């Protein structure tokens, strides 16, 4: 029996393509965010408000298993949107993003949001070439989610706590959720928002505009 050294990462192929995407984004001066959450946390509703603010300067690549519902909503909100239907895959990969960008006119864009598949687990393992990962956590999901699904929260530069208008009606200890987020990443930026009332969006816009 002989042992042969390999010392290669299973993520290497994805990471190489992610670096190509990153170089393209840098060359275009694009700020790119990878939005990750469970299904129904409100990613698309947040993007509708961003679309209303930045209109054609906002590009969105949105991933779902099936349908073009999200891209349709975001186009209606004024954004440049493109749908990726993965047909079953639980996360977006750097190559899916690279392929979709070939179909998108990047010249007018200032911001690009990659709306990942609704899933708190798998998408966090894949670098897509983004400037930052943003986790969206909603008050209807439960305050223990950061501690239960920690990988994403160690990687996210910002956590958006959505649906804060529902706090009087749900059993969600926002202090506990924020404390657990900071245990996992003490430098995380936490912004409380509501797509219904608009609370927190001025801060979110400032965060967007401060990204390098």
């Amino acid at each position, binding site marked *: *029996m*002989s*042992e*042969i*050294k*390999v*010392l*290669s*990462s*299973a*993520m*290497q*192929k994805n990471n190489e393509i992610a670096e190509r995407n990153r170089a393209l984004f840098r060359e275009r001066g694009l700020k790119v965010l990878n939005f990750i959450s469970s299904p129904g946390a409100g990613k698309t509703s947040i993007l509708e408000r961003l679309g209303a603010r930045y209109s054609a300067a906002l590009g969105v690549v949105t991933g779902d298993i099936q349908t073009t519902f999200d891209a349709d909503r975001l186009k209606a909100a004024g954004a440049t949107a493109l749908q990726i239907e993965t047909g079953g*895959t*639980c*996360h977006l*990969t750097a190559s899916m993003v690279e392929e979709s960008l070939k179909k998108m006119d990047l010249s007018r864009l200032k911001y690009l949001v990659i709306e990942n598949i609704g899933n708190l*687990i*798998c998408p*966090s*393992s*894949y670098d897509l070439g983004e400037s930052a990962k943003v986790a969206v956590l909603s008050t209807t999901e439960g305050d223990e989610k950061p*501690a239960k699904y*920690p*990988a994403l929260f*160690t990687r996210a530069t910002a956590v958006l706590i959505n649906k804060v208008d529902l706090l009087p009606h749900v059993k969600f200890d926002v202090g506990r959720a924020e404390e657990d987020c*900071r*245990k*996992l*990443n*003490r430098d995380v930026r936490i912004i409380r928002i509501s797509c219904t009332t608009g609370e927190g969006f001025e801060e979110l816009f400032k965060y967007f505009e401060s990204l390098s």
Partner: protein
Amino acid sequence: MHELSVATSVVDLALQHTGGRKLTAVNLAVGANAGIFRESLLLYMGLVLEEKGIKDVKVAWRDVPMHCRCDCGTEYDILRYMDTCPSCGSFQRAMEGGRDCTVDSIEVEDV
């Protein structure tokens, strides 16, 4: 479920290094913050190998911890996210590593 694509990459990497000899073992190093579920990866590796008609491959698994540098000056490794600093008990730390899944080495039959 993303373990299926990780398993496919691991098997591809392993087979690229056999030099045409029969693969008998894959030695993995998996980060505690790689987001990889052990049982799923092992299950999918078995399926991917079976599909290629390769039998009797052992998989050895080495956990790679997350490395922490605490504000109190202590450096320590953790495998679980909510483990605190062994010196001061706090979470005031910078955390790095433990995010990769690497094929350390493979074993093949001698010719």
